[in-house]
Every structure is written in C-alpha cells, then in structure tokens.
C-alpha cells in the first residue's frame, strides 16, 4: 500500500513539474505579454496543485496536509491577482507592447 502511495506521489509531482516546464516554455516562447501571462498563471496553478496533491499523502499530520492546501490556495489567490494587475497595466498602456 505504501509503495502505491509513493508511486502516486512521484507521478503527481512529475506531472506538476511538467506543467511548470510548459509554463516556462510558454513564458519564453509566446509572442506578447498577455499570452505569456496566460501561460504562466494557468500552468503554475495547475503545476503547484499537482505537486501539492502528490505531497498530501506524504504529510506528517492532517494539519500539515491542510497547510499544504492553504499554500496552494494562497498562491492561486496571489497569482490570479498579480495576473489581473499586470493585464490591467498592459491595457492602460495600450496595444502593441
């Protein structure tokens, strides 16, 4: 049973890392700021979610697991807000930047 849990953790964390990789490639390759923003926020939220999901069975206690989930939620809140702020600043500056 514990091997199955470990395999689940490894698979979930690797999938999360793949999303981070995709987000980074998008950041480097996409043509303009808005698409780069899209790549980063979507991929990072999912990537971190999968990493947290993989770490959950490894948590020492219920409280530790809840802290991991709280970290994920807080990062989502922060990155969603920052994405909105950057997009707002871009729109104010006008197209073509």
């Amino acid at each position: 049973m514990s091997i199955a849990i470990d395999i689940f953790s490894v698979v979930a964390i690797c999938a999360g890392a793949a999303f981070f990789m995709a987000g980074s490639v998008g950041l480097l390759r996409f043509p303009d700021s808005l698409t780069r923003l899209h790549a980063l926020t979507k991929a990072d939220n999912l990537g971190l979610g999968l990493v947290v999901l993989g770490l959950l069975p490894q948590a020492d206690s219920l409280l530790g697991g809840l802290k991991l989930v709280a970290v994920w939620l807080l990062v989502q809140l922060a990155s969603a807000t920052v994405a909105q702020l950057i997009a707002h600043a871009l729109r104010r500056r006008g197209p073509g930047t």
Partner: protein
Amino acid sequence: MSVILALDISLAVLVLAVAVWTIVSREAFAAVVGYVAYGLLVSLVWVRLFAVDVALTEAAIGSGVTGVLLISAAVRLRGTEAAVAAEWPGAASRLLAAALCIVVTAALAAVVLMMPDPGATLAPEAARHLAATELGNPVTAVLMAFRALDTLLEKVVLFLAAIGVWSLAADANWGGIAGPPHATHRRGALAFLAQLLPPVGIVVAIHIVWVGANEPGGAFQGGAILAAMWLIVIMARLAEAPAIGGRRLRLALVAGPAVFLAVGLAGFAVAGAFLAYPAGLAKPLIVFIEVFMTLSIAVSLPMLVLGPPHRPRDWPSS
C-alpha cells in the same frame, strides 16, 4: 554524486547567475526584479542549510518588504534613468572600481578559505543552556536571551531608520500622511486581494510569532507579515496611510524597543544583570517582549516602504 548534491550545486549556480544578472542589468526596475528573485533563491539556500528561521526572514524582509521598497524607488527614479545613463563613468574610474571589487572579493575569499574546519562555534554551548530559557527554538534563545543586546540594538536601528525616512520630508510636510500623494483612487483586483488576504495573513502572523518560542518563526517574521498586510490595504486604497504625527503610531513604533529596554533594566534589580531574566520567568518574559517587538516591526516596516510624508491640500492646518 547524489541527486540532492546535484540539486544543491545547481541551486548555488542559479543564485550566482541571478546575482550577476542583477548587477549587470542596466535598468533599475529589472535589477530590482532580479534582486527579489535572488532573495527567494537565497531563502531556498537557507532551507537547504537547515536554517529555516533565516529562510523565513530572508523571504519576508530581504525579498518581500525590501523588494516592495526597491520597486517603488525604481518607479520613482524612472524619469532620471536616462540622465544617469548619460553620465557613464570614464575608463579610469571603471578600472578603479573593478580593481577595488576584485580586492574586496579576494579578501573575502581568503577569509572564508582560511577559516578553521570545523569553524569555531558556540552552538554546543548554546544548546547546553537552552533548557535555562525554557524555549524549544535555539534561534529564539540566542536572539532573545544569549545575544539579547544585539536584538535590542537591531530594533532601535529599525526605529531610527523610520525617523531617518521621515526626516527627508520638507518642513511643510512634517506631521503629514506617510508616503507620497496618490493620483488615483484605484480599486479592482488589488482591493479584492486586500479584503480577502489580511484575515488569513494576520492569523498566520500571530501563529508564526507564537510558535517562534519552540519552532522556526518569531517576532521579525510575524511582524513582516503583519506589515505586508497593512501595506496591501494601504496600496489598495482601502485605508489611508497614517499621519506620522499620530500618537498611536508613535507609541506603536517605540513599544518594542521600550518594553525590551524596560525588561532589560528590570533585569538589574531582579536577576543582577542587564537583560538577564529571572529563573522560571524567562519564557513568559521573552514572549511578552516579542509581542511588543512584533507590533513595532509591523508598524516601522510600512513606514520605511511608504517613505517620507506629504500633506494633502485639504489637510487641516495645525
């Protein structure tokens, strides 16, 4: 070579690379972004060195609060950047600067390489006397008991720094509202975050101060989180920044150093030395001091970030 060692080495290389990028980037804003990334990477390094207390402080102060301070400075200096770039120093002064940097680097490298291995340490001594403080976290014991004088002076420095920032104000602005005037009344995404985050942040900050006695955490880390919550609320225009003449603000600024000093002086009478704690009361006294220190840190950091005060036009004349 194990996987962990490979990861550590790549982390170290990454830190150096980001540091070089930060130094060579010509634009102040880009350099600040590099500095923030550098701070976050360095806090990962502290985690790898099992210094979680330092990692928390580095992430909260070195990267977070200092990052906000430097970003607002970079934005304010943006107009002057072209003029600064035009004044590019000549070859002689650049050579001199390079030579000086090399000498300092070589001296630092020599000192590090000549250190005895294992280095001289007081760690076993501190660990042996940890029980006397009734604390579980050796870092807090060193900060608040064994080296309490350093921590006290550190708090006084923070207080002096806030006064230094205020003293940059023009005479007419003295006693005004902390920070530069704001043109717009902005709401939206930031206001949403400023409404949602502080309840969570305040709970986390209090938790971090409280567990600091036994686990990584403490007044500085918790105070920095409280400061960040206050700054978000001010930046989102949900609340006005405080007037620097306000009595409550000034009381909060001096509370930490004052309580620390008072307990330290009481140590003469009760325990026979400055900053000595009477046996059996060490932990409650330390927690008591930390509560006031947290308040002072939470108030003085935003004062540093906001900058010198201004007086709005409709401000009542005093």
